[in-house]
């Protein structure tokens, strides 16, 4: 059992478990930053439970459905291990990885800002273990739905079509994008009801924060290598890729504007142009960063989903939006 846990922990955290320390330091920084700000809020226990269940289950499913993980454990599944020992070890390693790199951040943030954390810790623990166990059982038992095209008759290339096939073959990206769009709808009343209409650009920045779409090359290392080996990728890869991200951004901003119009009220005409500018800028910065600085030093694909580099564009857009709000406000 110890042998299996060690082997799997190395998959998730590196040969010397260096990822453990890195994750603890990051969580500590998040905790100290929030705690020292003095910001306190009363977070309802059901909200914490829901966030924990959602975050944990998503993290488990992303890891279990990743082709990288499937490749990693194929060798273990070939060996005559006792199934219960293998599953116990693999579950423990995956749970530790999810706790330290994903759900733990949520707990630390909660502990830093909440006023009565004891009940929250208990709720977090129960939600974490239950959602993890259920997601593991479902994720491990369900076969990955591999998209198949019996024959592709077209002979001309289209990288847009390529990326769409990739996204439909890895549905986590699609579900994340749909959730981002749903979030855009809820964002308008939240910002609108603050009574500070000039803050509208902040919503555009948040609507363009579809970070998983910004790692489509990093998540496929051989594709990334080939793209960098071929000449003229600005026209064959950069523009189609940026077009996909820009379309997703535009849909998010469009839903945000529609929601604002329905639930809050009138929208100044120039805000439509601002929305388009944020969508275009967000897309081009995201793709430029991905092509210039791809993230290839990852052990588990889900690490990519929380990589700090992905938030550079979001941060830039937020600063831009805040400046714009300040100017027009």
């Amino acid at each position, binding site marked *: 059992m110890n042998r299996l846990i060690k082997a799997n922990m190395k998959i998730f955290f590196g040969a010397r478990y260096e990822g453990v320390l890195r994750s603890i330091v990051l969580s500590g920084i998040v905790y100290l930053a929030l705690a020292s700000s003095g910001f306190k809020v009363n977070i309802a226990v059901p909200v914490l439970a829901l966030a924990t269940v959602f975050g944990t289950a998503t993290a488990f499913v992303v890891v279990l459905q990743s082709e990288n993980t499937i490749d990693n454990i194929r060798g273990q599944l070939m060996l005559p291990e006792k199934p219960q020992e293998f599953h116990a070890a693999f579950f423990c390693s995956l749970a530790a990885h999810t706790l330290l790199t994903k759900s733990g951040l949520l707990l630390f943030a909660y502990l830093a800002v909440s006023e009565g954390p004891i009940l929250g810790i208990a709720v977090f623990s129960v939600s974490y273990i239950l959602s993890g166990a259920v997601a593991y059982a479902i994720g491990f038992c369900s076969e990955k739905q591999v998209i198949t095209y019996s024959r*592709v008759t077209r002979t001309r290339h*289209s990288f847009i079509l390529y990326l769409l096939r990739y996204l439909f073959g890895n549905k986590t990206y699609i579900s994340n994008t749909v959730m981002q769009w749903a979030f855009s709808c809820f964002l308008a009343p939240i910002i609108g009801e603050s009574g500070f209409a000039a803050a509208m650009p902040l919503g555009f920045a948040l609507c363009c924060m579809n970070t998983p779409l910004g790692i489509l090359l990093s998540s496929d290392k051989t594709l990334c290598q080939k793209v960098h*080996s071929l000449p003229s990728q600005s026209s064959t890869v950069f523009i189609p890729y940026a077009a996909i991200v820009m379309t997703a951004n535009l849909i998010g901003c469009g839903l945000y504007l529609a929601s604002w119009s329905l639930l809050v009220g009138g929208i100044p005409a120039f805000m439509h142009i601002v929305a388009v500018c944020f969508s275009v800028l967000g897309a081009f910065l995201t793709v430029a960063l991905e092509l210039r600085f791809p993230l290839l030093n990852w052990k588990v694909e889900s690490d990519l989903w929380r990589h700090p580099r992905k938030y550079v564009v979001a941060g830039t857009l937020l600063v831009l939006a805040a400046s714009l709000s300040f100017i027009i406000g």
Partner: protein
Amino acid sequence: MLLDFNDLNVWYRKGSPVIRDLSLTLGEHEVVGLIGLNGAGKTTLINTITGVHKGYSGGVNFADRDFKLCRYTVFSEDTSFQFYSFNEYLSHVFASYGKEADAECVSKLAKGFGFEQYRTTLIRNLSTGNRRKAYLITGFALGLPLLLLDEPVNGLDFQSTEYLYEQINGYCEFGTVLFSSHVLESICLTSDRVLVLDGGAISREFKQNEIDAVAIREVLNEPTD
């Protein structure tokens, strides 16, 4: 002269070069075989010349666009563009090089490699061998001055391997082939020059008539320093 560099050092961790002070000259229209034991640096050298490995020094810029336009690489492990069919992949690569594919030439290569019926199948749904054929056909169809092949024989069946040797030998018409292999036969049957890579350096070079399986085997069996 197609490519000439001296004192190439390549590393994954700075201070620990895996290729040391390597000098290489590639003439036009020749086939150069790289052979060596596992870990000798064959793949690293090919990836470096391709421009996808960044940790190197030697005064050459392998990522230069003009150089990129002159070469194509078939990687040893490649699952790229797996959501394209072969036909779409071919179109994408030719567009990258600003070239139009010669349909007749592609058909001939596909037939030779026994790949005709897989041209419309997604690359991800192909077997390892057929996937390798897709990238090889693209490389030969491009006909660029330099074709880099990393372990091209891996995964190929007997007939395709024979056809590959034929294509490598015939490539001199278009340009130069630099290919790595640990299969002695593939090197001996195709190369004008053979470079033995050992510990990140070229330990021996065999030319034309000197290329002999027994002699190369002896060099490979020599204890390393």
